[in-house]
């Protein structure tokens, strides 16, 4: 259903979602639509900004200490800062070439089975701009260089699964940085994704949930797992 044709309905559904009266399957369906339609997510954000201040308490109350411990236990283990590894090149010289290579692989691929899929999106000059790494249901994106975009436009990333409509993977960052590990949208199994593609959409993303312009960049999904 193209909810954007019924803005009042979309608005009242977004309100009911934030209020919490939208429940059960309707809520799940709406959550799925939110991931696919950034403009709908923007309506929800407006409702959140309108209503949420009133749910905040007059008097703060500290939660039990166990809460933080439980949260911290679920964070990724801290790694040595990625930015510093090449500075240890002096140490590598002292190591045998073979050992140095092994160390390099260990540093660059700390957990090879964890993120076996990858794709690199290049700009028109052939320079890499985004690198996507993923396993079946998680993904992380590194933005390697700035990608200027007009103020009224956004770059949207799509997953292409053969025989299916493109699935929105969200809006692309345009400045260098890295995302944390994210869940793939809509329970998408990355194993089925053949390639990823980028289109330029109105700011906030495609109003229809599908690409509205031609593909600007695309990249195959590569598996770093050796096929046996």
């Amino acid at each position, binding site marked *: 259903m193209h909810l954007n044709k019924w803005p009042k309905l979309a608005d009242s559904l977004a309100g009911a979602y934030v209020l919490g009266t939208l429940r059960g399957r309707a809520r799940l369906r709406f959550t799925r639509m939110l991931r696919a339609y950034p403009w709908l997510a923007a309506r929800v*954000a407006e409702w959140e900004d309108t209503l949420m201040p009133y749910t905040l308490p007059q008097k*703060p109350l500290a939660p039990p200490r166990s809460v933080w411990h439980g949260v911290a236990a679920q964070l990724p283990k801290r790694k040595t800062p990625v930015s510093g590894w090449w500075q240890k090149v002096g140490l590598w010289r002292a190591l045998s070439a073979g050992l140095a290579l092994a160390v390099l692989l260990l540093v660059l691929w700390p957990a090879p089975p964890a993120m076996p899929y990858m794709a690199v999106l290049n700009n028109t000059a052939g320079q890499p701009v985004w690198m996507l790494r993923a396993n079946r249901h998680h993904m992380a994106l590194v933005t390697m260089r700035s990608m200027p975009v007009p103020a009224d436009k956004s770059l949207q990333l799509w997953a292409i699964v053969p025989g299916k409509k493109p699935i929105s993977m969200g809006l692309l960052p345009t400045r260098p940085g890295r995302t944390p590990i*994210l869940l793939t949208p809509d329970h998408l199994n990355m194993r089925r994704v053949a390639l990823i593609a980028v289109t330029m959409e109105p700011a906030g993303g495609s109003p229809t949930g599908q690409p509205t312009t031609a593909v600007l960049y695309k990249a195959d999904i590569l598996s770093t797992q050796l096929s046996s």
Partner: protein
Amino acid sequence: MPEIAELEKLLQKIALADQQAFRDFYDATAAHLYPVALRILREEGRAAECLQDAFVKIWLKASEYQMGRGAPLAWAAAIVRYQAIDDLRRLPKDQPGWEEEDWEHWGGQASSPDASMFSERKRLQDCLGQLPSDQRQAISQAFYRAASYEEVARFAGEALGTVKSWIRRGLLSLRDCLHHASE
């Protein structure tokens, strides 16, 4: 209330997987967010569990926060609220005592140390006050109790369809009123 600019800066760092920033964000907001879960789930153990799950989501979703949106605490409170609503579904449906508190006036009388928060609260109270009383009560219940349409209908002794339309119409008028009041 924690500083908006400070919290946004922390969220920006959390999006880059900065765990110290996340700890700082937790320290600044947990005591404000815990009561949001507690109010809906009404039991400390459940609320603590809910808050824990919600903070893991905050860690994962920090990159989705639109910088400059100006409402990092509202954004985080929404994540806690949605988690609490999800958790509610797993609870037995025997939640007596809705009338134990004067929910309709909750938050109306106490003074908040934060003036802008107080004026926003007042705006909502004023706009709620302009709604027909059935719409106002249905929305207040849904809002403060995180009640479903079915629960509001049961409590009001009305048909489900009636309650749904009260809430839909009420929400849209509320929104118009709040927009109008902020202009």
